């Protein structure tokens, strides 16, 4: 993943990719009798892509530390409910604060756990996902016991997750992600620690500080994903039996594809583009009449596997 890529090459690659996407969009439109290129449809695709991008950007920092955190889906759900509750009390301000605070606290905790316990992160992440889901089910039972329903955000507070403000969020997000990941000393330190922690430490990088700060940054993006989701849906169902994994599935696929094209386009910028591709596919499937959550998931699985194969082509390393 070359960070300081050739600027001209990158801009050209981006333009090519965008043109390809637009071309496909027109083709799909014809195939779907013009139902595809409607304002609300495109809005929905873009909104979903932006939500997924925030999650994927958070993941970029997870990958930088060489971690794989499967609990992020459940963490997002925690942020969702927290921001819903506080949002109903304090309005959009409360929404944002709750989401970000919960995101930061939990992700920092996650990273500390990974570092301290020395368990492979994907295993620990699964365990944490289960624990967080358990916590959410406790929360749900508590709500039931006091006679309330699951938190539903008042719709007037849900402005951040909808156009036009969501596009503003996107611009803020991508600029922040780009600078933090590629150009800041935090991003560099995170990648150093993830690459070779012992050497990084020996060379004077404060590993603990790096882990915590990266946790904070990652938590900010995850928190944003959380409150944006709540703003968009207003009411979100409780996850169980690792269904929270489904939340991170599309961003995951986006990062994968982004990693493969990271030779030409910087990861941070590639991520939203890949997310758009994925949600276009989802959308086309549902327009054709396939119920959501079924074949689309299978298609996504195939995407991940195919891009996984491509990414690993020519790998000489040992792969478990």
């Amino acid at each position, binding site marked *: *993943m*070359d*960070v*300081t890529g050739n600027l001209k090459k990158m801009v050209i690659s981006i333009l090519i990719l965008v043109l390809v996407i637009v071309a496909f969009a027109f083709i799909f439109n014809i195939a779907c009798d013009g139902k595809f290129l409607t304002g609300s449809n495109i809005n929905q695709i873009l909104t979903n892509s932006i939500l997924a991008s925030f999650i994927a950007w958070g993941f970029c920092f997870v990958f*930088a530390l060489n971690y794989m955190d499967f609990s992020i889906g459940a963490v997002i759900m925690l942020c969702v409910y927290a921001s819903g509750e506080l949002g109903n009390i304090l309005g959009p301000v409360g929404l944002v604060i709750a989401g970000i605070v919960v995101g930061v606290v939990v992700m920092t905790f996650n990273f500390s756990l990974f570092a301290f316990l020395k368990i492979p992160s994907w295993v620990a992440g699964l365990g944490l996902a289960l624990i967080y889901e358990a916590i959410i089910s406790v929360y749900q039972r508590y709500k039931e016991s006091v006679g309330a329903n699951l938190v539903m955000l008042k719709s007037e507070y849900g402005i951040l997750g909808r156009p036009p403000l969501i596009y503003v969020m996107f611009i803020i997000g991508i600029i922040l992600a780009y*600078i933090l990941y590629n*150009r*800041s*000393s*935090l991003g*560099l330190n995170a*990648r*150093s620690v*993830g*690459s*070779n922690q012992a*050497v*990084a*430490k*020996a*060379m*004077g*990088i404060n590993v603990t500080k790096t882990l915590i700060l990266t946790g904070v940054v990652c938590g900010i993006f995850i928190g944003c994903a959380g409150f944006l989701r709540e703003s968009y849906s207003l009411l979100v169902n409780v996850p169980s039996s690792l269904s929270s994994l489904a939340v991170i599935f599309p961003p995951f696929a986006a990062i994968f594809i982004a990693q493969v094209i990271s030779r030409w386009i910087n990861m941070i910028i590639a991520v939203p583009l890949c997310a758009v591709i994925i949600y276009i596919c989802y959308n086309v499937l549902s327009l054709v009449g396939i119920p959501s959550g079924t074949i689309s998931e299978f298609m996504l699985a195939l995407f991940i596997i195919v891009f996984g194969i491509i990414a690993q082509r020519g790998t000489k390393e040992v792969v478990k």
Partner: protein
Amino acid sequence: MAGEIILKTEKLCKTFGPTKANIDVDFELRRGEVHGLVGENGSGKSTLLSQIAGIIGSDSGRIELQGEVYEPHSPLDAYDHGIGIVVQELGVIGNVPAGVNVFIGRTQRFTKFGIVNTTKINEEVREIAKEWDLGDLPLNKLAGAMNVESRKQVELLRALAVDPEILILDEITQALSYDNRRRLYAIIEKFKAMGRSILMISHDLEEIMATCDRLTVLRDGRVVDTVETSAISMNDLKRMMVGREMEGEYYRVDNEPSRRESIALSVENLSVTDEVKDMSFDIYDGEIVGFCGLSGSGIHTIGKALYGLSDEAKGKVRLRKNEALIDSSQKALHEGMAYVPKERDWEGLMMQANIRDNITLPGLDDLKSKAGFVWNGALNKTANKAVSEFSVKCNSIAQEMGGLSGGNKQKVNLGRWIAKDLSCLVLDCPTRGVDVGAKAYIYNLLKSLKADGLGMILISDELMEVLGMADRIFVVKDGEIARELKRGDEFTEDNIIEVML
């Protein structure tokens, strides 16, 4: 100025668990000198360096740098005190570009508001490379994507970037090609001329004697003596390191090549991407064929290709006795070939498994019972036999592999093949990082295998080893056989070096 003591240790001690790695080490480094640390594996030389470099702390004793007490808590500390380090334990950070690696941990002056200016970093790195006449490197490339030699160069640049008074080099030359080795020697000369000092470790005794002014010999954690290089001979040096007379010849005594009539392995048009170019040769039963060359010459790749480990290999490697084509490592194993890789700790042995499982892994096919099962009784028997036959020093076959010394590990690495009915043996640097006693043992083993009629391929970085043990030598340059030498008058170091460059 020159001759004045710049670094000194007094009664330095370091213990790891039950073992005393450094006992009362008194050592001094003078300005303007090149000082070598020599000793067998386990003598404590790397432990001493690590303490000076700030990688580990000392238990007792003290270090003085330029007259003041010096207690580094990290390599960064050492850097701040003007000590540049290139040590095995450090290395580069793979996910970060090479240029940034040179200044890793010290990027503060290139950073404003948290943003790092990589262009400025690269500029300064190029200046440093120019000042010390080191080659050009692709600084934007991720260090992890570079080969071992380039990475070592990055480490060297990193050490030089602090403009150090003392440069510590731990086993660096073995990773460098001849040109870069020459550049390194030039840097060493320059250091001397500037009144700065170099502290180096190398297993290559010839190199150490040629490069260093003084040598400190360590044995079993203690300093044996510090001597002027000009005042001792190689044999004296060996004697000090081992503490006993080397009995008889290390290598072979005979001066003529010998081999059987039958061909063990025949290689036709072997090529591997651009590392090995269209090589053809035959290995006869009962002969030792040496392969030597620079690190980029492809000799190690040849070894892998012969055992079917190279996916990109083209051409034919054939076992003559049954015309079997070796195109995968499982085929090689099945047909009775054996391969002893260069990096025994992570390519040859499973360090956390026990001795028994390591020894029996290549031989599982032979240890099967009639029903096809592999019972522990047979495994234990084979392992115990091997351990006693090769005098492997261990607590029991249940001991973890990582608990053995280098020499004993190598005995297992090599010995586990011997029990099998071998058709051909490929060895890559079989005595690398092995103490003198175990070396002699291994050479004896090879001599007896040769007498039994086994064809062997000896790939080695040590010219003396190849000259001492082989019947024929193929000198390899840039993936091609530059010259074939036969044992006898042709076997001189000059003959090899002439063609190797």
